[in-house]
């Protein structure tokens, strides 16, 4: 909320203090005198405290009347664009990406398929604390083996 006599031309900029030359987000420049300015980011949708019809210290004020409401700008200004330069750059990128995609296709085929219930696995070793087959726990401790042998001797 600004003093109306001096607010034209002002903008709000967000920075990381490690770099006060790179704007992370900003607002448009104020061009009209109002009492209150509200600038929204996308997450305004997650705000749940309700909106105040007048200036408030506990709620975000609703737009309209003496309150200007605008969307904040997340991306910094990109500067002027030379179409020819951009097309040439795109051409170079396209060629590079074709090579990259061919490499990726090759790489993808060497990766593990999605493991699912029907996947047959063959591997060098498996280490686990619990292994079941057809609902039967396969317990291979020496105690268990001895128990099974005793059961065979004394049916």
């Amino acid at each position, binding site marked *: *909320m*600004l*003093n109306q*006599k*001096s*607010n*034209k*031309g*002002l*903008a*709000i*900029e*967000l*920075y*990381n*203090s*490690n*770099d*006060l030359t790179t704007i*992370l*987000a*900003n607002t448009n*420049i104020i061009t009209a005198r109002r009492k209150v300015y509200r600038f929204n980011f996308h*997450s305004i949708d*997650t*705000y*749940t*405290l309700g909106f105040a019809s007048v*200036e*408030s*210290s506990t709620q*975000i004020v609703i737009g309209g009347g003496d309150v200007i409401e605008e969307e904040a700008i997340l991306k910094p200004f990109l500067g002027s664009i030379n179409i020819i330069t951009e097309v040439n750059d*795109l*051409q170079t990128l*396209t*060629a590079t*990406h*074709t090579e990259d*995609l*061919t490499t*990726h*296709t090759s790489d*993808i*085929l060497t*990766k*593990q*398929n*999605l*493991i699912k219930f029907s996947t047959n696995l063959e591997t060098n070793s498996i280490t686990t604390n619990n292994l079941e087959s057809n609902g039967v726990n396969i317990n291979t401790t020496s105690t268990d083996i001895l128990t099974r042998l005793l059961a065979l001797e004394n049916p």
Partner: protein
Amino acid sequence: MQSSLDTIQNNIDLNTANILNKQNTITNTTNLECNNFNVNGVLNIEKNLFFDTIVIRRPTDFSGDFAYYIGIRVFQCWLNDSYILFDNANNLISYYTLWGDNELPVGFLGSSTALIYDNTIFNDYEVMSTENSSDIALIIKNIPLT
């Protein structure tokens, strides 16, 4: 270029089909929830993409008249239903400055620039810069990384 784009499209279609048979890849947009998270190397957290500083200034030197003063009644910044400037007021650093030399504070009317986030709303300004320069800026630093 059209031929190149067609080739790319064919490769993309092939890769898409292949990718659907693969384990999902963890990217910088993936939300992870796991039991243990072990890092054998270095864990880097990119903090520079978060803001901790708010600047109010005239980036185009426009003011609409002969004066360039910045007067503020209250400044609110809401995040997740919290008024983060007021909540962190004790840790914030705020001052008027000239943007070209923005480490050096300059003068203002009012007792403290902290008044703009004390959650008290006045009809007139609580602080006002005294430098009549188009380069005038108000900086609020030390905001928790957001």
